[in-house]
C-alpha cells in the first residue's frame, strides 16, 4: 500500500505538481458548469420568449426591422448632437469641478467665503434632479429677456449639465485630495513649499490620478444625461427617437437609440472598470 502511494507521488513529481493538477481539474469543472448554465439560459430566452402569446406584437412594436432600418440613419445623425454637447460640456465640467474642489480645500480664513460657496454649490447641485436644473436654467434664465444668441437652449441647457456634473466631479476630486496622505503635505512643507505649490505639484497630480476611474463613471453618466437637454428643445437622439415613435406608432426607434448608446457606453464602462482594477492592483 505504502509502496503504491510513493510511486504515485514520484510519477506526479516530474510533470505538473499535484496542486497544479488539482487546480486544472477544478477549473475544467467550473468552466463546464458555466458553459452549461449559460447555454441553458440562452436557450430559455431564445426558445421560450418567442413562445409567449404576445411575442409577435412585441416584436412588431419594438424589434421591427423595417422601422429600424428606416430610422437608424436619422438617429445616428441626431446622436451627433449628443456627442457635440458632450464634447463641449466635459472639459468645462472638469475645469469647474476642479475649481470647486479647490474652493472647498482652502484653509485661509480670509477665503472662507470661497469655502462656503464650494459647500453650498455642491449641496445644491447634487441635491437637485438634473432635469429640474435643466428646466429652471434652460427656460428660466433666458426668460429674463436675454437677446439672441445668448438665450439659446443649447447654451443654458449645457450650463445646467455643467453645474450639476461639476458638483459631482468636485466631490470626487475632493475625495481624491483627501486620500493623499498627510505625510506628502508634510514632506512638501518641510522643503519650504507654499500651500499653493504643495497642492499644485504634490497633492493634485496624485489625487487626480487616483480619481480617474471614478470620473470615468461620471463621464458615462453624463453621456446618457445629455439626452435630458431634449426637454428644452434640442432634437437629439432621444427626442428624435420619440418623434419617430410618434410618427410611426412604433417603439423600435427607442431600441435603435439604445443600441447607439450602448455602443458608446459599454466600451467606456469596460475601460473604466479596467482602470479601476489596474488601480486596485497598484495599491496592493
Amino acid at each position, binding site marked *: 500500500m505504502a509502496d503504491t502511494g510513493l510511486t504515485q507521488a514520484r510519477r506526479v513529481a516530474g510533470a505538473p505538481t499535484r496542486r497544479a493538477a488539482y487546480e486544472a481539474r477544478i477549473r475544467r469543472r467550473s468552466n463546464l458548469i458555466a458553459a452549461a448554465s449559460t447555454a441553458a439560459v440562452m436557450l430559455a430566452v431564445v426558445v421560450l420568449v418567442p413562445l409567449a402569446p404576445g411575442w409577435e406584437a412585441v416584436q*412588431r412594436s419594438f424589434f421591427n426591422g423595417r422601422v429600424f432600418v428606416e430610422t437608424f440613419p436619422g438617429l445616428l445623425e441626431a446622436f451627433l448632437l449628443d456627442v457635440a454637447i458632450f464634447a463641449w460640456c466635459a472639459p468645462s465640467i472638469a475645469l469647474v469641478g476642479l475649481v470647486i474642489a479647490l474652493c472647498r480645500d482652502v484653509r485661509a480664513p480670509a477665503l472662507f467665503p470661497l469655502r462656503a460657496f464650494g459647500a453650498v454649490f455642491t449641496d445644491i447641485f447634487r441635491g437637485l434632479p438634473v432635469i429640474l436644473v435643466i428646466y429652471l436654467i434652460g*427656460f428660466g434664465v*433666458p426668460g429674463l*429677456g436675454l*437677446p439672441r444668441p445668448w438665450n439659446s437652449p443649447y447654451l443654458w441647457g449645457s450650463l445646467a449639465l455643467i453645474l450639476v456634473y461639476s458638483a459631482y466631479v468636485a466631490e470626487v476630486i475632493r475625495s481624491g485630495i483627501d486620500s493623499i496622505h498627510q505625510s506628502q503635505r508634510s514632506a512638501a512643507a518641510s522643503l519650504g513649499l507654499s500651500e499653493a505649490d504643495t497642492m499644485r505639484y504634490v497633492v493634485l497630480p496624485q489625487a487626480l490620478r487616483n480619481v480617474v476611474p471614478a470620473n470615468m463613471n461620471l463621464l458615462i453618466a453624463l453621456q446618457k444625461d445629455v439626452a435630458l437637454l431634449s426637454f428644452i*428643445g434640442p*432634437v437629439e437622439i432621444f427626442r428624435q427617437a420619440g418623434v419617430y415613435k*410618434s410618427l410611426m406608432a412604433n*417603439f423600435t426607434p427607442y431600441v435603435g437609440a439604445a443600441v447607439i448608446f450602448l455602443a458608446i457606453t459599454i466600451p467606456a464602462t469596460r475601460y473604466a472598470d479596467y482602470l479601476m482594477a489596474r488601480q486596485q492592483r497598484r495599491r496592493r
Partner: protein
Amino acid sequence: MRRTMLALCATALPATGAWAAEHATCAEGKTLQEGVLTIATGNPAYYPWVIDDAPESGEGYEAAVAYAVAEEMGFGEDQVEWVRTSFDEAIQPGAKSFDVNMQQFSITPEREEMVDFSEPYYSSAMAVLTTGDIVEAQGLEPTVESMKDLRWGAMAGTTAMPILIDLIAPSSDPLLYGDNADVTAAMQAGQIDAALFDLPTALYLSAVTLENGTILGQFPADRSQSPDEFGLLMEEGNPLKECVDAAITALRESGRLAEIESEWLQEATGVPVIE
C-alpha cells in the same frame, strides 16, 4: 334574451331607437365589455377637445363626438365608459384598456401599419402660433416666405414636425418639446419665434396660455395636399372598426358632425390664410 331586450328598447324609444338597435348588432361581441363602449382620452384632456378635463359631461368637441358615435353604435350615455391613456400606452403592444382612443390622433400611413384608425372625425387646419411682440419686432406677415427664417418649435409627439418641414421648410432646425406648456415657455424665453399646432389648440394657447399670444395665420385643411385628419385609434385588426366607421360616416352625412363642430370649435374665420 338580449335581442328581445334591445327590441323592447327599440319599441320604447321612438325615432333613433330603432335605428340604434340595428347598429347595435354591429358592435355586439366586439367590445371589451359587453354592452359598454370604453373610450380613452388623454390625461389630462385639453380644451377645446374636452372641457374641464371631464369627458363624462359630453362637453367639448371630442367628448361630444364620442357620445354621438356611441349613440350611433347603440350605446346609451350610461353605456359609455371613459379611461385615460398616454399616446405611448395607446400604441404599446399587448391587451388594450380601451375600445377606441380619441385624443387628436392624426391619421398617417406609417401609423396605420401598427394600429387602426377610424374614418376621420375632424380635418384640422394647421396654424402658426406666435406673440404680438414677435410679429411687431420682425414685421411678420402671413406668408411662407416671411416665416422661413423664424426659429420654429413644435410638439414632439405630433405630426406637426413633418408638416412644418413640408409646408414651410424653415432655414434652421426646429426645436421640439414634450408638451404645450414647454412650447409656450420656450416662446416666452425668446428661444423660438413661432410654433405650429392644429388650429383649435393654437387658438386655445393664444387666448389662454401664451402671454400676448396671437395666430399669425392658418393653412386650411382643404387646401393642403395631405391634411391633418384626426381619427379614433383602435388596436390593429379590431373588428369594431367597421361599426365606428359606419357611425362616423352617418354622423357626417346627417350633418351632425358639422353641428358639433360649430358648437365646440371656435370660428376661425378671423384667422388669415397663409399665402
